[in-house]
């Protein structure tokens, strides 16, 4: 019997036993749906937790300070420094050459006085960096957007700015589009004026949670470079020794999480203090792995139950169709024709159930994601993205269900194939 004839036979048989097929398919759908939902949610949660640990940036991001590391620096996730070590383009070039380094983003901070439309002026730090490499920076946008990479009139404020006005994170949009007058100070030589400011106006275009460097205002690096040039052109200030360093810090992204430690060691050898949540992430990942195993186990048990349902249904079908199988053999079908018939039938049920289950699973995950996101946003945190892995999970769910259906059908199909042709006349 040809494949196409077998497929026709399978669809006719399946269609004739629509209710049973539907129930079996639903069993598979529930199993695969549960597994897909659990995998989707746990993957998204894992990503989100790790992302939170890395403050919205890449999990392999390493912060480098213009400082000399302490001997125990590599044993700690945070900076352990003991003196200034200027960071310049030469050091950046050396770090970039490491084979485990994916990118290096320079960071420059500068003192600033900000005058908001209402309320008291704020003394703070302006953080300048390459905003064209936003994906490599530990920044989470809470509202609005980031300034354009080369804009000199846009600024993003950190959540500390909201604290200044006693605003909750959910009220972040209220500060968008307001204008700030910002001034970088320069120490003057004498007279009554000790400091003179370099003033500029900027519109708040975004509110962010950021860990690039200590600071309240995030601007393109050109803005801080001009501010530092302004400051350096005045008298030296012993309170700000880093003004002479080309960069105050770097954000270095390692190629993989496994190489974070290696990159930190290389930078440590160059004489710079580093900070990265590598130990924390490793510990959290171990716990998340346990959670994944438990969730995956629950889903797998559901799928095994579904596969047992397929096996049970097919065994019942074999029992019911003993005579039909016998007749089929009596008119010349080979054992492998019967085997193919039953395997294809299971495959059809598995694929139908897998598609339905995967779609339902994604739907359930999306619904849960909506609830979770509402909660996270209310807490001033970033939401969970459940859409980026949907396609892969659906494919995996369908393929897994089909494979499981075939495995579950193997024994019943073999039993059917080995039934003697005499079944055609059994009981007569």
């Amino acid at each position, binding site marked *: 019997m040809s494949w196409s004839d077998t497929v026709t036979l399978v669809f*006719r048989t399946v269609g004739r036993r629509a209710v049973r097929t539907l129930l079996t398919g639903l069993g598979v759908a529930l199993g695969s749906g549960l597994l897909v939902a659990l995998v989707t949610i746990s993957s998204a949660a894992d990503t989100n937790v790790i992302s939170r640990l890395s403050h919205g940036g890449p999990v392999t991001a390493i912060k480098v300070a213009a400082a000399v590391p302490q001997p125990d620096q590599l044993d700690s996730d945070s900076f352990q420094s003991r003196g200034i070590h200027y960071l310049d383009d030469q050091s950046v070039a050396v770090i970039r050459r490491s084979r485990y380094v994916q990118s290096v983003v320079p960071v420059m901070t500068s003192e600033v006085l900000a005058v908001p439309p209402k309320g008291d002026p704020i003394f703070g730090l302006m953080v300048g960096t390459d905003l064209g490499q936003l994906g490599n920076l530990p920044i989470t946008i809470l509202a609005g957007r980031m300034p354009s990479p080369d804009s000199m009139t846009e600024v993003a404020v950190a959540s500390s700015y909201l604290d200044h006005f006693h605003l909750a994170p959910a009220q972040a949009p209220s500060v968008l589009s307001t204008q700030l007058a910002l001034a970088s100070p320069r120490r003057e030589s004498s007279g009554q004026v000790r400091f003179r400011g370099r003033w500029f106006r900027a519109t708040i275009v975004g509110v962010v949670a950021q860990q690039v460097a200590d600071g309240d205002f995030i601007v393109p690096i050109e803005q801080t470079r001009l501010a530092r040039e302004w400051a350096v052109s005045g008298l030296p200030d012993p309170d700000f020794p880093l003004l002479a360093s080309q960069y105050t810090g770097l954000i270095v992204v390692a190629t993989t999480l496994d190489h974070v430690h290696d990159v930190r060691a290389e930078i440590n050898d160059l004489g710079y203090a580093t900070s990265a949540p590598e130990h924390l992430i490793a510990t959290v990942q171990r716990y998340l792995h346990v959670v994944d195993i438990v969730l995956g186990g629950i889903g797998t048990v559901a799928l095994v139950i579904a596969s047992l349902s397929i096996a049970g249904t097919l065994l019942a079908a074999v029992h019911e169709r003993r005579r*039909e199988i016998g007749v089929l053999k009596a008119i*010349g079908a*080979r054992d492998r024709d019967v085997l193919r018939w039953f395997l294809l039938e299971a495959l059809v049920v598995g694929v139908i159930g897998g598609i339905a289950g995967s779609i339902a699973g994604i739907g359930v995950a999306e619904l849960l994601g909506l609830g979770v996101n509402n909660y996270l946003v209310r807490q001033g945190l970033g939401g969970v993205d459940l859409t980026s892995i949907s396609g892969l999970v659906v494919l995996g769910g369908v393929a897994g269900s089909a494979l499981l259906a075939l495995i579950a059908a193997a024994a019943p199909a073999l039993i059917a194939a080995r039934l003697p042709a005499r079944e055609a006349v059994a009981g*007569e």
Partner: protein
Amino acid sequence: MRGSLGIPPLALRVTRRDQTGITRPRFQDVFNPPSGSGTIVPVFAREPVVPIAGNDLQVTHAQEAVGGARVIVRGLRHRYGSGDLALTVLRGVNLEVLPGAYIALTGASGAGKTTLLSILGGLEPPSEGEVVVGDFAVAKLHGDRLAAFRREMVGFVFQHFGLLAALTALENVELALSLSGRGARARRRKAIELLADVGLEARMHHLPKALSGGERQRVAIARAMANDPKLILADEPTGNLDPGAAGLVMEHLERLRKRTGCTVIVVSHNPAIAERAELSYRLEDGMLALTA
């Protein structure tokens, strides 16, 4: 088996070998039944057919049909189970059916009629003995060769019709053609012809459940004829039919047999059906006896 395969047409030979002590009809009893016997009725007046009664039977047909298979059974024994639970159904059956013959097998329930039919058709292997259908030593066939034998040589007609419930009448017939590897268009054309032959061209797209018993059996006959078999084995083909439908089914079967010349062996409880055959045999206590 003492009969020769080279028996000339119209030859008459009678042998009797019965060591069981059971009274069996003799040749002369067949042609001159004892008064009051009632069960032995000569029915093959149309053609000169030579029966050999007892456990060593030869049946010849006057004119060997080109489309039929010769069937030879030698020393056939069959039992189910083993040890104390063994049940011997056939106790040494010998039979020769020449190509194109039309014979009936009768007997009480459990006498082994269906078992004999199953062995002839390759549905189950015999415990002992030799079965030859055409050029095939059936008892020695296995796997794909046995499937090919059933596909190419034999057409089965079952009491329960044996139609696949999920397929229409046309698809049931096509299924048999599909197994022999015919192309879609060719098998569709032939299936329609076969169904038209049994008067079901208007019902070919109906599922079996929408057909009457007689119609289902006609579909089964069309399917049995699909691959131009040399041997038709019909197991109680009218067992589930009313007399009218039974008669119609047998008419179709006999008409197709005449047209194709295939050998037909029918198992039936129904004396009227048995009487339609050229020869009628009775299975009793695992032995075969000619009754008519």
